[in-house]
């Protein structure tokens, strides 16, 4: 989230799209009801299903699953062609005026640089025109046809209301009504919040859907303001913490990235990431990359990391490609892996195409699961009748099950969607032999280190030199780990302006990432968490809910990264002169008297940079402004473009009916052999989408009796028209088939799944909740990912769970 949960109460309009906050985030949804009750805020829900969020909305518009970019692109077109944008904001705080490389083109659904064979882009033309001064060229008059504004206007002019309706199936009037409501928030005293979740991420172009939403918000001037923002609602209580700590195959903590295999040179690695400002007077905060990186390496390797060995840079893996979940199971399926340690993860249930995952697991020599529950993955080898019809005699994988604690059985911090690190305390002792994850990992690590010490082996250095200074080596405590993430000074850290002034003494916890150094004098496990545990103590454990400004900015409640900042880009809530656009929702303002920015939030800005200095609010970007044109940051294009889901009821993309390459995302990775596993609308005519229900949490709560009681049995939702056509009544059992398998479930026939007209054709949607499986106390059922395709987003490789094709028949 750019903003945070409580801040939603400050909004005037809530757009829930690509999410279902009322069902999946009922506690956070409270802030929507607060905004409605106390600010007369309106709620719009755009969703393939009339969800429980829609049930309490002011306006609902149906949309075909997977067509969100068309819808949002249509909104961009509406805002631009009706001139309903926040002029001062876009002109000063975005890349509107930046001139784009002349070689950049977009033709027949493809951006310049496409390599059809490799299915990727050479992104070298996706950039700005750079002047001789090294800065990007701009045209403040916005007249240059190569400026971002003009290119964007042209790009989205194709997204007419008729085209939107054709692609999305949304009735034109409903679409225009949404546009009108949204356009109201272009006023500087009106704002909109967008709440999304897996309904946007789990598509072959999920990242671009989110980008398009963010572009709408930028046009309206709704980023950086209270009650605005792009708000990703995270599913697990600590999934935000997972990405923050870099637990993705290509990340380092704090959104730093692992080097690629061609990046053997340390300095080149740093230089590529420590962006120099692209415009005069800009901060470009990533220019501090080296400080964050060195401090991380010091936290990991302690004294072993030194300037002369490039802080152990050589010990880091250099990636030939990303090792995301799809790639890992592809490798496993190809027999390239011996073992798999599966910690707090149930891939048989939560990865796509169960038959492929199951087959892959069967090729392992060993599988280790670390989980509080008996997961399906841990029992993939066992025959559970129709729900897991495998022959155990043919599966030789040895499975080790290590019972772990669940979050309520341990101390620690959780990072919520609003980036708050909230310390929590153990609520109960773990049952049986369960150990905490860090005990289990420490146990494995210490034994492996012993083996390396004793027997040697290939490349033992990173293991033998790992800093492991825990009071109990077999049980690193949550407090120790939290302090390590927050960081400490190894030597006295002094003020760069006044070397005699010591900011932090050696051995003390640092106050924030501004104190990090690239000379080895600081160690910090995750730079964005810096200051969470300072010499003042554990700030994550703070529980002061004082709200002095009355807009939910409780700065003394827990700790928000970065720097306890609650709303990102909050400089953009003020006009260029530093005056808040809306004084009633003031976040920060320039105080000429003190020469500082101050207010209800920690400024996301250089705190003493006067407005006249011309520094722009998006300090993490080298341009200083927000980007509509993504330059080379996205794999599938600098402007989001609508492509069909890999399985869609349309045989061609209505935008480019003649170009089959531009039907589905041209840059999305598809493994060899998986093309054949995609279904076509002739055999699988219905759009399917999978989702969660409020009664359950993923595949966990089917183990909980009270949750099983309130939603006991697997079902699928079918619209009335389709049910009639197939003679299906509510309560009947139906078989839902995709090209990859089938499930059988109870049919819930409902008016809430509407028949849409897409590309002139009647289109039915089948809704498939995910929560059942073959373990737990709820009625056993099929894993819904039996049905889903093995393809992911072109940038993140998040699987396309939200839009695929099925057929339905009565059993």
């Amino acid at each position, binding site marked *: 989230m750019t903003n945070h949960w409580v801040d939603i109460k400050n909004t005037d309009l809530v757009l829930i799209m690509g999410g279902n906050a009322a069902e999946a985030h009922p506690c956070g949804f409270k802030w929507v009801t607060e905004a409605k009750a106390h600010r007369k805020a309106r709620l719009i829900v755009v969703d393939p299903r009339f969800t429980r969020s829609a049930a309490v909305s002011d306006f609902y518009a149906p949309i075909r699953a997977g067509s969100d970019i068309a819808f949002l692109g249509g909104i961009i077109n509406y805002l631009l062609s009706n001139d309903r944008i926040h002029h001062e904001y876009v002109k000063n705080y975005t890349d509107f005026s930046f001139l784009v490389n002349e070689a950049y083109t977009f033709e027949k659904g493809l951006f310049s640089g496409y390599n059809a064979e490799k299915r990727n882009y050479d992104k070298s033309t996706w950039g700005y025109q750079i002047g001789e001064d090294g800065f990007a060229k701009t045209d403040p008059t916005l007249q240059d046809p190569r400026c971002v504004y003009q290119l964007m206007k042209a790009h989205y002019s194709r997204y007419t209301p008729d085209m939107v309706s054709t692609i999305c199936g949304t009735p034109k009037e409903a679409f225009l009504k949404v546009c009108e409501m949204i356009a109201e928030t272009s006023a500087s005293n009106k704002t909109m919040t967008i709440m999304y979740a897996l309904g946007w991420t789990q598509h072959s172009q999920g990242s671009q859907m989110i980008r398009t939403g963010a572009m709408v918000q930028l046009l309206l001037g709704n980023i950086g303001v209270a009650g605005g923002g792009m708000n990703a609602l995270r599913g697990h209580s600590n999934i935000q913490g997972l990405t923050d700590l870099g637990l993705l195959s290509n990340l380092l903590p704090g959104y730093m990235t692992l080097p690629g295999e061609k990046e053997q040179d340390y300095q080149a690695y740093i230089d590529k990431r420590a962006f120099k400002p692209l415009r005069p007077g800009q901060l470009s905060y990533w220019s501090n990359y080296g400080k964050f990186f060195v401090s991380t390496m010091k936290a990991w390797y302690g004294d072993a990391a030194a300037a002369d060995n490039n802080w152990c840079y050589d010990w880091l893996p250099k990636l030939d490609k990303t090792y995301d979940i799809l790639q890992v199971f592809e490798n496993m399926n190809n027999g390239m892996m011996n073992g798999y340690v599966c910690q707090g993860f149930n891939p048989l249930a939560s990865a796509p195409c169960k038959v492929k995952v199951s087959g892959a697991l069967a090729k392992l020599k060993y599988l280790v699961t670390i989980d509080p529950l008996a997961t399906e993955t841990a029992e993939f080898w066992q025959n559970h009748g129709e729900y897991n019809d495998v022959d155990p005699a043919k599966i030789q994988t040895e499975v080790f099950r290590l019972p772990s604690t669940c979050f309520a059985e341990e101390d620690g911090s959780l990072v919520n969607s609003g980036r708050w690190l909230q310390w929590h305390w153990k609520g109960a002792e773990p049952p049986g032999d369960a150990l905490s994850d860090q005990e289990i990992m420490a146990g494995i690590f210490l034994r492996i280190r012993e083996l390396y010490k004793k027997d040697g082996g290939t490349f033992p250095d990173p293991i033998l030199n790992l800093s492991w200074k825990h009071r109990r080596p077999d049980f690193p405590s949550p407090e120790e780990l939290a302090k390590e993430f927050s960081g400490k000074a190894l030597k006295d850290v002094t003020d760069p302006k006044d070397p005699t002034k010591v900011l932090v003494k050696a051995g003390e916890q640092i106050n924030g990432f501004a104190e990090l150094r690239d000379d080895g004098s600081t160690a910090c496990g995750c730079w964005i968490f810096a200051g969470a545990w300072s010499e003042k103590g554990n700030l994550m454990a703070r529980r002061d809910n004082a709200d002095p400004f009355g807009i939910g900015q409780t700065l003394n409640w827990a700790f928000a990264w970065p720097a306890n900042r609650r709303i990102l880009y909050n400089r953009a809530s003020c006009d260029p002169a530093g005056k808040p656009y809306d004084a009633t929702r003031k976040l920060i303002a320039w105080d000429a008297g003190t020469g500082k920015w101050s207010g209800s939030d920690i400024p996301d800005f250089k705190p003493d940079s006067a407005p006249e200095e011309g520094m722009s609010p998006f300090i993490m970007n080298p341009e200083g402004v927000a980007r509509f044109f993504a330059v080379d940051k996205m794999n599938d294009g600098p402007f989001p473009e609508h492509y069909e889901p890999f399985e869609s009821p349309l045989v061609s993309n209505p935008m480019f009916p003649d170009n089959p390459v531009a039907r589905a995302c041209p840059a999305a990775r598809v493994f060899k052999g998986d093309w054949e596993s995609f279904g076509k609308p002739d055999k699988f005519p219905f759009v399917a989408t999978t989702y969660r229900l409020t009664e359950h949490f993923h595949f966990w709560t089917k183990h909980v009796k009270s949750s099983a009681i309130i*939603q006991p049995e697997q079902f699928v939702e079918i619209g009335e028209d389709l049910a009639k056509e197939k003679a299906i009544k509510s309560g009947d059992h139906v078989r839902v088939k995709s090209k990859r398998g089938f499930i059988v479930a109870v049919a819930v026939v409902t*008016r809430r799944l509407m028949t849409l007209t897409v590309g002139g054709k009647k289109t039915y949607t089948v809704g498939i909740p995910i929560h059942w499986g073959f373990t737990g106390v709820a009625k056993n059922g099929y894993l819904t990912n039996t049905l889903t395709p093995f393809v992911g987003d072109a940038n993140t490789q998040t699987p396309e769970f939200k839009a695929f094709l099925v057929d339905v028949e009565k059993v």
Partner: protein
Amino acid sequence: MALQSLDIKARSATTTPSPDARANGAIPVAKLIDISKCIGCKACQVACMQWNDLRDEVGNNVGVYDNPMDLTDQSWTVMRFSEVEVQQGKLEWLIRKDGCMHCADPGCLKACPAPGAIVQYSNGIVDFHEEHCIGCGYCLTGCPFNIPRISKKDSKAYKCTLCSDRVAVGMEPACVKTCPTGAIVFGSKVDMIHHAEGRIVDLKERGYSNASLYDPQGVGGTHVMYVLQHADQPELYANLPKDPTISPLVGLWTGIAKPLMSLGIGLAVFAGFFHFVTAGPKEVEEEEEETD
């Protein structure tokens, strides 16, 4: 369930007044359920189960979101989902939390033949004291909302207590405590009516011109009230009765007929007695036989 830490205003099958020396201080309480804010998450159902130590069976899906399908001795509240189109083309999914309404004039209490098995506390909560319940099921006939359920295990009647045990110690009912959206609120009845008025203004401003409070006077008002978007058609909400009253078969019958009938039996006995002492026994004299 039995917990006598609240003052009792009325008891079932009891013809004398309940002790009410302390009644003056009691503030009538109410739970207000704002259906326009309800997201049907069923957290209230789980909170109810957990606080009251109830666990229904893991049932089946029969083609709807409702689960458990109905109130039982183990499910004192359930969400009822209704898909309606009040305005052509505008689908609404109305989700009503069903459970005891805690009538000011409780039909169950009136119908109950077991003294003290059903009580009404001075704050308005109607509670079942199962240890006095004889399991006759008459409370079912008295209830205009079809709420009480007889346990198959112990043949006692059960229903929502409005968490009288929590309220007695100054806490809100478990469902209120857990409701994530504030759709369920609890306080004095006066305050809840006031709160509802604000909600109704908001709903009317959003185009629900018939929004209103559901506090049916046919049962003397209730201590569980709804804010309805379509108060003119409460039946839309899974057949919430429009004008609930205690059935005259229960109300008049228990209130008037039964005492009169009891009196009738007494009178018959007395009539016999007085007939006997006035007319004397009918005796057959031996002579009669002889003269014959």
